[in-house]
């Protein structure tokens, strides 16, 4: 066990972790960040996406010990007036909603790098995330709307 420091959505936590523990499990079980979800365990669906210092990471593949001192953002920690959240709600970009937090964070990352992406940029950035309900048209529209907000 090693004590690591994590800043999650602006709050500081000190958590004991084993070498093998995944960032996904630490965030869920020790910090209660349930918007971070396991979908495949192999980094292929994007449901477990978090932002580490603004960069997307598949937390199901990340060992927590390597993130000592990291600043992490999860979808449930986004501010009340977050434009990407609003755009997703207004664009009806959700069905079951299970995968959507991952898409929201990928959209945050994209818009930070490229404030006015075209459809091709959006598709290229989101293609690693799976929405099995098939909400892709609405998700693309949400990202476009957020870019114009």
């Amino acid at each position, binding site marked *: 066990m090693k004590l690591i420091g994590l800043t999650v959505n602006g709050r500081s936590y000190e958590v004991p972790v084993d070498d093998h523990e995944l960032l996904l499990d630490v965030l869920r079980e020790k910090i209660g960040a349930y918007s971070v*979800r396991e979908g495949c365990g*192999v980094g292929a669906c994007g449901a477990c996406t978090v932002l580490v210092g603004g960069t997307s990471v598949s937390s199901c593949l990340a060992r927590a010990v390597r993130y000592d001192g990291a600043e992490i953002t999860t979808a449930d920690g986004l501010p009340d007036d977050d434009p990407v959240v609003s755009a997703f709600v207004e664009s009806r970009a959700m069905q*079951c909603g299970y995968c959507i937090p991952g898409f929201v964070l990928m959209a945050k990352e994209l818009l930070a790098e490229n404030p006015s992406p075209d459809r091709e940029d959006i*598709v290229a950035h989101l293609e690693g995330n799976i929405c099995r*309900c098939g*909400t892709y048209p609405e*998700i693309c529209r949400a990202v476009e709307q957020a870019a114009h907000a």
Partner: protein
Amino acid sequence: MTQTTPIATGSGTGVGSRRTRVGAEGKVRGQLRHVADRPAGGAAHVAVHRSTRPHARILAIDVSQAAELEGVDAVVTGADLHAVFGERVFTGPAFSDQPPLAVDRVRYVGEPVAAVLARDVATAREAAELVYVEYEDLEPVYDVEDALEGRAFVHDHLKPSVVFGDLRHLSGKSETNIAYEYNLRLGDAAAAGSEAAETAAHEFWAPPVHHVPIELPATVAWVEAGRLELFTTTQTPSYVRQSVADMLGLPLSHVRVRVAPLGGSFGSKMYDRLEPLLAALAWTQKREVRMVASREEAFMLTTRHGAEVISSMSADAEGNIVAASADVRYDTGAFADVGPRITAKSGMIAVGPYRVPNVSITSRCIYTNKPSAGPFRGFGVPQVTWSHESLVDELARARGEDPAAYRRRNLLREGDEGYMGTVIHSADFVGCLDAVTEAIGWDTPLDRGEGRWRRGRGVAVGIKAVLTPTVANAVLQLNQDGSATLMISTVDMGQGSDTIMPQIVAEVLGLDSEQIRVVAADTDVTPYDTITAGSRSTYHTGNAVRGVAERMRERVLDLAAARTGSAREDLKLDSGGVLNTATGKRYSIAELVHEHFGARGATLTEEYNFTTSWQPYDKATGRSPKVTEHWFAGAVAAQITVDRKTGRVHVEDLAVAGDVGRAINPTLVEQQLTGSAIMGLGHALFDELVFDQGQVINGTLLDYQLPSVKDLPDRLTPIVIESPHATGPFGAKGVGETGIIPIAPAVANAIRDAVGVRITRLPLSPERVLQAMNQAGVEE
């Protein structure tokens, strides 16, 4: 009459409104709590040791090393459970053929053989690897051909369950791998076919695929004062309560099944999945137990039936379809699950939504040594649609006739008695066909492409029966403040029932649907409901919800008449409360209920049942004058390009239409249609669960391809067709499956149009398209 709903402009939140989905922002932020989000606390984590053999006798199981691992509480085998529960360990909706852990014999690679209870997931999984099983191999039955040869049998004899009473006659049948056979005979298909002017005949194959909802199956179980509590990912809480109560020998009152919002399901989280195992472990080990399946395990819990369809369709010189036959073989895997129902209900319409006077259908549910196949969005219909929509296309092309026009003149119409014996009503096949063809510009000139690229268009139509007979119940509490609480056992898994059911209540009672809350299914609280599946909820549960709201309206008006001394017939309820039409005076629900009880926060409660019936198939012909409560009609048109160098198909334009009777919430209907279309494109182009000697070889998301945002057509148009259903709630019926049914044949017909090859095996992968073009001599 056919029309589409315009975007609602009013402020109402009742029927027809595009009100926002319940919990929309919570979903975007990931605030919804799913089953796996329940803190583990002191629960024992369960991991499963799985069979490495497709078919074998278990000679011995050595659990000693696993049990000795630090942190392991217990290791349980099928024999342990059988010693406690006897034959009751075998569960299943059609046949009692499914043990939570294998008893004496394994029937597929991946079947649970032993369960480990441990302090954490990692320890449980490590211990599961330390279980050693000695097997004596039996001859495996890998596919339906093997199964029909009958050299080996997956089960020694058939054991119909008590759930589906009509299978009783199969009890004890041995030396067969055919769990169920359905036959439909009308006229003389062979004679009519041989005299016909044109016949199209092929062997079709639709492979097994997996649902892959992104939320993994999860179950938590514990025993509390002699009662079993389950918190689980299921579409069928009422069924699970019965199944677990039967296994444990408990009254229904002593089993409680609760669900949380599902992160998708599509048919995968229903009937007996993790629940019997976790219930049996909690009961026998006296521990709270918890299991979240890994993605690899989820692939082995259920699949969609792979299906072979050997079929033909014949037309006379005028192009009227005169005969059709289909030999349908559903590969149901090691356990029948709901396969017999799929076999009958979907086999029954295996020659499509057409007027056909001579029909012969044989549909069989066949055991093999593979993971069990069960329900999947479409319930076996996409597999037969793959056949009939390809054949109809070939008949049209043989005549040089436009495939849409050819379908139009052969389609079943209002009032026709279909070949299955049931009269067609409120199913607008022609309206759907016309809408999708118009949407992609079917009648406009097509640039056929040049160089590597060839362009084509294809269309397909689908028919499906709604699940019948089924039972729905609703309980409504009208709260004193004018809000309401609705208790139903329909499970919202993304389809939006928690949003549309309140819209129905709001429409009847003049309430704001945003103030009406649906209670998450809890068998201690919410009333019996057959299942959330088969696109049945909008119609069945919707009618129960409409009925209970109407009873509540009468109750409120009675109460208002008594309290205000008004004549009952002068009173009406609308969005402003109760109005006395004689005096113009108004009374709010809040004051009426407050005064009636003398209490703030009091509630009025009503309940309502809605049950549909059917008439069983005639034994000789397989026909029935009422085989279903109603039909779903859908159509898809696609414009694609084929890269002749790579065989890759690109979808430029796709239109999908479904007749929903009346859209309770048009936005949610459109999302069901586009979502179905995208899932269906995966099935058309690349989705396939690949087996090698009974073993799944692509059961991870690194290997199993799913549609991503990259696979979106350039243009995708959902079209809501509203031919009001006479007995639907406000004319409505369901839409969850309609869109997925005709996708694959529409794409295949477009490939046929583009490069001239008829492909009969799914998926339409670049390799397969290229191979078909090479065989047909199509130039690169």
